[in-house]
């Protein structure tokens, strides 16, 4: 590889991505300026307030970004282990020694500023993951390799959870998408999807009962879903039509008959029959596993068993969660109404966005955000300011721009000639997807309120610099490979 690529590298940079980045950052700065603007003291530019500070952060981020662009790809690859180890140590140190801020130990105070290492650590995980996947003979269809890959991801995640920064920790789950791209079975994603569905349905309906029969609706639906999912998995993952038919006809047939009988003839508590059917499915799958020595049957059997006990487990899980997180989840699921408490934030956010209408109230004219009805308006809830002042036009445009940006990144990741580059690219993609999904979703009242920033928009040096490094390493990788391709 040519070592003088630094000179030409800027010619090979993907300027479209670069342009998106600049648009996001500038748009973000104007939004922060508006969010911190006060009606009764219209101060102009000032470095002591948040928009002024953000200007400084943008400057720093651009400098760091330029430096990142100048460093060769092989440096990143060579020192992937080092970066990873470095951030793990930092994270542990933060957890142990950082002063407590708002109940979590995740901020390192540097002078008057504070940095959040969890935001920076992402790229190191992405780099190491790329190296790991690139190892000869590594395959994500092998259990040991999956565990190895998961370990890389879950180790920092665990530390960050212990820092009591659940939101930032959950972001690391985004790496599952990368693993999926690199060959991990789609069923794993399906398992996660199923778990979320069980959780939501189970918690939502666990206090509703069918009259006269004492049947808990949540329990019944989860058990039936478990039957359907198990049957479906048998059909699609094992391609075993015969077994699937048996399970559909006999298992679900019995369940259906029992339910109809209870509803129309004699009401009785039929939950135990459903449990029996589920257990019979498990037994049948184990039997098939022994017979055919096809390991997937065991997986599905395990899934079916876990599904059966999930409902009872989720209640326990919910009670183990912190109080405010449980309330947030319950409020989101519509089980609790608390207009002044947990629901207040989301409710005010909805009012802010809803009141924007088609074209918005105009820049600096939002009342919801200016008069601090919306909390965290310049950080996690910054999307409200765009919704209120820019209306449907700007808020939808922002989403479309992100869609385009992420699609561009996917396209770039696919054109990487080597595995580490691709893995890294997909890591960037997945992290942006996760942030966009959760952040905008919570403002729109669709996902739980997990305090994670909207990339490039939310106020804060750590997240801006973290995302910049994450993105710019990828731009450098992409540019370098493009340059190599040209030279060849």
């Amino acid at each position, binding site marked *: 590889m040519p070592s003088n690529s630094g000179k030409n590298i800027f010619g090979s940079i993907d300027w479209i991505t670069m342009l998106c980045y600049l648009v996001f950052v500038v748009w973000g700065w104007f939004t922060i300026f508006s969010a911190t603007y006060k009606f009764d003291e219209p101060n102009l530019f000032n470095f002591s307030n948040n928009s002024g500070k953000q200007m400084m952060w943008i400057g720093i981020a651009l400098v760091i970004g330029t430096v990142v662009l100048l460093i060769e790809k092989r440096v990143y690859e060579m020192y992937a282990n080092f970066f990873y180890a470095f951030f793990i140590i930092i994270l542990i140190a933060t957890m142990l020694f950082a002063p407590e801020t708002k109940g979590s130990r995740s901020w390192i105070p540097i002078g008057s500023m504070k940095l959040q290492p969890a935001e920076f650590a992402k790229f190191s995980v992405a780099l190491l993951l790329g190296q790991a996947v690139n190892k000869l003979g590594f395959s994500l269809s092998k259990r040991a390799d999956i565990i190895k890959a998961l370990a890389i991801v879950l180790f920092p995640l665990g530390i960050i959870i212990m820092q009591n920064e659940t939101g930032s920790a959950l972001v690391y789950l985004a790496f599952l*998408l990368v693993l*999926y791209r*690199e060959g991990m079975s789609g069923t794993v994603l399906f398992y996660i999807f199923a778990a979320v569905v069980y959780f939501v349905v189970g918690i939502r309906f666990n206090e509703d009962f069918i009259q006269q029969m004492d049947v808990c609706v949540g329990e019944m639906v989860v058990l039936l879903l478990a039957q359907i999912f198990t049957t479906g998995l048998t059909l699609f993952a094992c391609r075993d039509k015969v077994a699937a038919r048996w399970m559909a006809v006999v298992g679900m047939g019995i369940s259906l008959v029992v339910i109809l009988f209870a509803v129309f003839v004699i009401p009785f508590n039929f939950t135990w029959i459903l449990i029996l059917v589920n257990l019979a499915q498990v037994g049948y799958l184990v039997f098939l596993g022994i017979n055919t020595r096809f390991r997937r049957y065991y997986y599905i059997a395990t899934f079916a068993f876990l599904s059966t006990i999930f409902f009872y487990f989720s209640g326990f899980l919910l009670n183990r969660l912190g109080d405010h997180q449980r309330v947030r989840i319950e409020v989101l699921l519509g089980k609790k109404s608390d207009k002044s408490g947990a629901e207040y934030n989301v409710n005010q956010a909805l*009012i802010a*966005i809803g009141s924007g209408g088609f074209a918005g109230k105009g820049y600096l004219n939002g009342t*919801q955000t200016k*008069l601090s*009805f919306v909390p965290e308006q310049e950080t996690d809830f910054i999307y409200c300011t765009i919704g209120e002042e820019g209306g*449907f036009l700007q808020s*939808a445009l922002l989403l479309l721009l992100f869609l385009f940006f992420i699609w561009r990144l996917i396209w770039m990741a696919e054109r990487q000639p080597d595995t580490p580059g691709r893995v890294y690219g997909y890591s960037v993609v997945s992290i942006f997807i996760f942030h966009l999904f959760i952040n905008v979703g919570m403002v729109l009242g669709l996902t739980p309120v997990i305090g994670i920033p909207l990339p490039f928009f939310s106020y804060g040096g750590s997240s801006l610099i973290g995302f910049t490094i994450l993105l710019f390493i990828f731009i450098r990788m992409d540019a370098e490979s493009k340059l190599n391709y040209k030279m060849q």
Partner: protein
Amino acid sequence: MEKGTILENRKFVIGGIILVVVAVYIWRLASLQLISSDYQTKADSNAYYRSVVFPSRGNIYDRRGERLVYNQTAFDIMVTTREIKNLDTLEFCKAIGITRDMFDKRMEAIKDRKLNPGYTSVRPQLFVGQLSENEYSVIQEKLIRYPGFSIRKRAVRKYSTPLLAHVLGDVGEVNREDVEKDDYYSPGDFIGIQGVERSYEKELRGEKGVQILLRDARGIVHGHYKDGAEDVMPKAGKDITLSIDEKLQELGERLMTGKHGAIVAIEPKTGEILCMVSAPSYDPRRLEGKERGNYMSKLMKDKDNPLLNRATLGAYPPGSTFKPTQALTFLQEHVITPNTYYPCQRGFRIKGMKVGCHTHQTPIELINAISTSCNGYFCWGLYHMFNNRNQYKSLNEAMTKWKNYMVKMGFGYRLGIDLPSEGRGLIPNAQFYDDAYKGNWNALSVISISIGQGEVLATPLQIANLGATIANRGKYKIPHVVHAIQNGQVADSLTTFKSTGISPFYYDYVREGMRSAVLKGTCTGANIPGFEVCGKTGTAQNPHGKDHSAFMGFAPMSNPQIAICVYVENGEWGATYGVPIGALMMEQYLRGSLSPAAEALADKFEHKSINYNEKDEKKKQEPPKKKPQKAKNDTVDSARISVFHQFGYYRDSIAETVKQINEEKQKQQKLQKEALDRKIAEEMKRKEEEARQKAEIRQKAELARQKAAEIRRKEDEEKQRRQKILKQRQKDAMDKAIKSDWIIHQMKKKLEE
């Protein structure tokens, strides 16, 4: 390689995921921003705080400029229980001068939804009500240290006198009906409820202003929306000057103490009501502030019904005060001439029927008939009118004719006074008797209406208005209580004359009769030396008890200044109560004060009362049952304490704050001194003003006297001219009279047959 491409296809899954997420979110955005409009209003109600600015209500003055009703600022301490933080209760109690015990009790009462149904922890609740300005200025500074406590400023209606309750009316919170009827009001606003406060509500209330303020999540105001460009300033209400003479009103209420009834005095030239007394009355001052509820319910339970304005709503038989209307009708319809004589042998006797009368000479002509209040004369008149088939085709037609005259003279319908409630009285028509007698009635069955008895009912206002029409020779202005409106005008309908449709010159006979009544007839007691008083007594028979005593009159005859009706329930003879009270009232108004003799008489009448509860006396002698004590209101009110009484006491024990007390005292002394100086200066000013006004009045009176002399001269000329015409007419009328005598003759013959 094949596996590689399969895996590469997973980019579509990942790209698809973000596509679905963005699509769902845009759909959600659309439903929030484009479809639902709730959020806009929610955001507005969050951020824009429309603070209503109330205008000050107009003051009310009497005709001499004496202030009767005004506004005073009162200060309430409010508490928002939710906002109370780290309250040092003891210190707070000391600061506002209540005991700990009272604090606890008051707080309990506030939070008890039974006592305080509108309680919420976020809205300010009344803690201590109606501080004076002095108390307020001291407490205000201290209150800042106690979050959750605030001061509310509000205007309270104040009355300078205990008089005129019925005319002034009062102000209270709007009810739901008011709010629905008029967009101007919102719940909690105040509105005039009775009297002038109600009928001139639109003038008095002014116009509300509004401030649009920007308010943040903590309720802190961040200035005006668009720097106040959208704010509307309130417009102060207009002041109203009543035509009521406060002194006359005062005398009237004084004379009516212990009696039931009404006095209405009207200035005939303008239709302005000079006084309107309804007895028993109540003290409007006790209807302001906290006492209102208790006092109101007491008034409502009172059997004597002090809330009823008897002057406009009382329907009484007018009795003999009604006779002038009959005389005028008969003259106008040529039923009689002024020289028509009717016999009266202690009453009207015909076909075995008798309407009694007192002893006087007989036969008698019109002027004497009025003077002696002869029943027989007017019964004959009505009898002849109703039986004159030459002139009226049927009895119905005659009756209708008669009724129309009564209505034209202001009876039977509401006059249209500018007060919210007025009664109609009752003038029966042919239909009325058709229904009552099933079509079988004649002149004799209704004969008592000619002497103001029977079915005829009138309000004291209508009777006083009759006096005014006679004084004006056949025209009147609708009686009204408002003299002037600041920057406005009294309604045209109240300032234009209405005619009774009877020739003015017939009125001269009636006036002569009423003058004669004062000089030598039934109401000699009304004679005021120096003024030509005209009057007519009334002794209205009352089926429920003793006769009512009534008087209707005006003075002076040549240039009437005042027309009056006095009506005393169960006062027996007209001359017993009606006449002397009427005379005193007229003297007060015409002279401006009472002579010493009159003053003595007024004193006598003030202490003369009529027992209206004879029937109930027995019931009352039973031991009254003990009423269950209502502790409820006591606990609420006990928290209201004079702050300054206890102020010093608490400070004494604390050495450190002795200095503070001294300062406080000095401050107070200074304030008091200043207030005293101000008062003295005001007093001086007022005296000067008064002297000036008196001089002015004297000057005006001189002018008026000169004018009056001139008018009198002109009138004498007019009279001579008119008497010439009269003689001519009398000759013509003689023929007719002879004819009617002939009819009597005929009738007598018939009767003998």
